[in-house]
């Protein structure tokens, strides 16, 4: 967009929205939220960047290669944790019976594999939203 007010306010607002989204993903096991809503927030901030500054500048920051790595990395993290559960105790995606550290009830480092799965889901949802937006909005030249 060519408007100077929109550009200046977007430059100030985008880091705060992204920080709030990462906070919701990381505190998914204590407060309401979790991987899906936090990933949607981070994806929305990236879509805002694409809408205001144009597709070419956004393509330089989140190129095709970064999207591919984020898409596949989210699912692979989930699967690696699950297969680690097979080696440790015998069943896929097991939490307490596999010996992961539990921690205190209500602190940030608690719950075994649950925060790791939330991070994987958040990365996957954010990269899905920005990839779909870039594919739908580009034009043939």
């Amino acid at each position, binding site marked *: 967009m060519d408007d100077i007010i929109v550009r200046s306010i977007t430059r100030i607002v985008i880091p705060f929205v992204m920080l709030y989204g990462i906070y919701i993903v990381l505190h998914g*096991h*204590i*407060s309401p939220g979790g991987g899906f809503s936090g990933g949607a927030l981070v994806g929305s901030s990236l879509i805002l960047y694409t809408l205001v500054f144009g597709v070419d500048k956004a393509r330089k920051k989140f190129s095709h290669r970064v999207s591919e790595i984020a898409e596949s990395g989210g699912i692979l993290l*989930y699967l690696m944790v699950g297969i680690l559960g097979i080696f440790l105790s015998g069943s896929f*995606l097991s*939490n307490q019976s596999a010996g992961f550290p539990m*921690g205190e009830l209500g602190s940030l480092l608690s719950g075994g594999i649950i925060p790791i*799965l939330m991070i994987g889901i958040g990365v996957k949802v954010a990269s899905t939203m920005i990839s779909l937006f870039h594919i739908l909005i580009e034009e043939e030249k």
Partner: protein
Amino acid sequence: MKNKIIASIFILLFVVLVYSIMQMPAGSGTDSLAYSESTEYYLENAASETGVTNIVAAILTDYRAFDTLGETIVLFTSIVAVVSVLRPDRKPKEGENNG
């Protein structure tokens, strides 16, 4: 005339659905429709078995973690489907006349 017939059919559908919904018990206690034994088990034992305080997150990623894995695969499949429609690879075969 055709618009009036379609609108009256939809109003009739709405009245029939509302009448059948009035027979359902309103959610006013622990005897509502979806409250079953598994809900009571989850509410009592989620904090001690999983170690987190958010019951919805505990059910999603510990008791039913396999469904969440299937759902991330659905997200991945939707990207593959959209890319195959909007950016197809066209490899021209050798020896074909029209380009």
